[in-house]
């Protein structure tokens, strides 16, 4: 399957995205903000459809929409980010706006499917360059903030007393999540961002690994699931998103079962 250009591009894109989604998801799960990230991807959907209407690239709209929403969420703090109802409202309004934009677009069906469920085989080489740049930026950013973010996540009050800026970390991290979400949506679509962002991270977090090892393992598992999904979709002709979602769920369950048996 690797003799085809579009497959090589797909594998490379999956690599770039998984390396970011794994570690970002690790923090996301640890901080209990997975639902917030789900909402970000939906705001990104509204942004992407809006961009399509304006004749811009949907990726720009997706990343922009998610980024703005992430920053606002971080600035608002627990008033929004910690409240299921608020997040649910934002999510549904964003989705509704996205539906409106799609309705106004005439050539909506294929665009909608690509946005909602991902279109990894449709990634262009130019897009690959953008993904590489974004992934590099995200990894550098995460590398810089990993230590204070970990401290602030585990012991917010102690971290604040020691001089960590909790609000700054919140905003920076949710901004990072927004960018990672936009990247992830290229592969899994906005509806299935969970599969690559949350499932591998949650699986790894069950293992009681030291933080740095856990971060690396999350990246590794995300990569394995993304490439596994691509390979399986090649041989079965089922969508990649389906296989990635299935592998993510199965991995999480298997680790849980193995722990239950060992205990």
């Amino acid at each position, binding site marked *: 399957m690797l003799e085809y250009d579009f497959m090589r591009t797909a594998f490379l894109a999956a690599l770039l995205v998984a390396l970011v989604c794994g570690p970002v998801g690790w923090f996301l799960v*640890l*901080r*209990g903000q997975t639902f917030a990230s789900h909402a970000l991807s939906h705001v990104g959907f509204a942004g992407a459809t809006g961009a399509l209407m304006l004749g811009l690239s949907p990726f720009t709209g997706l990343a922009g929409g998610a980024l703005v929403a992430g920053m606002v969420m971080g600035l608002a703090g627990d008033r929004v980010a910690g409240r299921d109802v608020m997040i649910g409202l934002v999510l549904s309004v964003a989705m509704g706006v996205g539906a409106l934009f799609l309705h106004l677009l005439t050539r909506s069906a294929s665009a909608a499917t690509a946005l909602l469920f991902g279109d990894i085989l449709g990634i262009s080489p130019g897009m690959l360059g953008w993904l590489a740049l974004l992934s590099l930026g995200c990894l550098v950013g995460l*590398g*810089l*903030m*990993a*230590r*204070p973010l*970990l*401290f*602030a*996540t*585990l*012991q917010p*009050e*102690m*971290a*604040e*007393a*020691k*001089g*960590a800026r909790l609000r700054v970390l919140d905003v920076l991290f949710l901004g990072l999540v927004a960018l990672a979400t936009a990247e992830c949506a290229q592969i899994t679509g906005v509806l299935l961002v969970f599969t690559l962002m949350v499932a591998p991270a949650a699986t790894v*977090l*069950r*293992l*009681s690994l*030291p*933080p*740095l090892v856990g971060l690396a393992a999350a990246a590794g598992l995300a990569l394995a699931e993304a490439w596994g999904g691509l390979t399986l979709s090649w041989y079965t002709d089922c969508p990649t998103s389906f296989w990635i979602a299935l592998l993510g769920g199965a991995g999480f369950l298997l680790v849980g079962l193995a722990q239950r048996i060992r205990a």
Partner: protein
Amino acid sequence: MTAADSTPPECVPSPHAARTSHPAASDLRRGADSICLKEVTLARGGRIVLSEISLAIPQGSFVGVLGANGAGKTTLFHALLGLEPTMRGSLSINGQPVRRGNRSVGYMPQMRKLTGGQFTGWSMVASALHGQRWGLPWYGRAARAAVEAALAAVDAQSLAHRPVGTLSGGERQRLLLAQTLLDNPSVLLLDEPLASLDPARMRETVARIHALARARGMTVLMSAHDINPLLGLMDHVLYLARGRALLGTVEQVITTEALTALYGAPVDVVRAGGRVFVVAEGGGSVLQEHDCGGCGVHA
């Protein structure tokens, strides 16, 4: 510095901010004040919690901070950490105005919902080591040694490899204490470290903290709901009530006269079976939480 003394105390500046960590240190430095408040007024959520408080706590002193919920224990700690702005007055630690991120102040917040219970005790303690610095949570040889030393100081080496979520409240408390020791602080602020411990563990915890403080010459402020686990080990009591504070020895502060004056209402101090009870006129204990349905735990 007596309980009856209402004039602001003169703070004795410490000869040098740096601390020495030898057992005799607390004797050598008698006379210098570690924590000094001058006419401090603190508010929380727009409500004045403590008003015009002046006090000086000598270096190496082990202070029990008592008061009902909402009396201002946590607010006072936050102010000493530089997390809470003061409405009026000045607070200093080791002769320096309070500031956030002061490494010579160790802080143990009230135990709350556990995050990251799957991490081992070692990882949990290590996360606090220079945890505010940018970069990766990477621990080199010196960092690992510091974590080991902190764990050893609280006899928690056996907890290092167990997931924190599987530990008891007392064991988790020991890990938190180890974290506060990482920076070799000269002042420890411990917010309700005895909450949710059984009586035997309470006494054990106080004795452990007391021994550590003595050995390292640390000043300790430890808030509590009950005075009894601290009896015999603390040098001073800081009693907070009705926006005011009373600092002194147990004999000075925990008396019917002194507390009645502080509360502005009849309060009885009853001693029975080697224990002390502060009882309000209505019959309830003044310090316990039982009749405090509406008030927040966080004041």
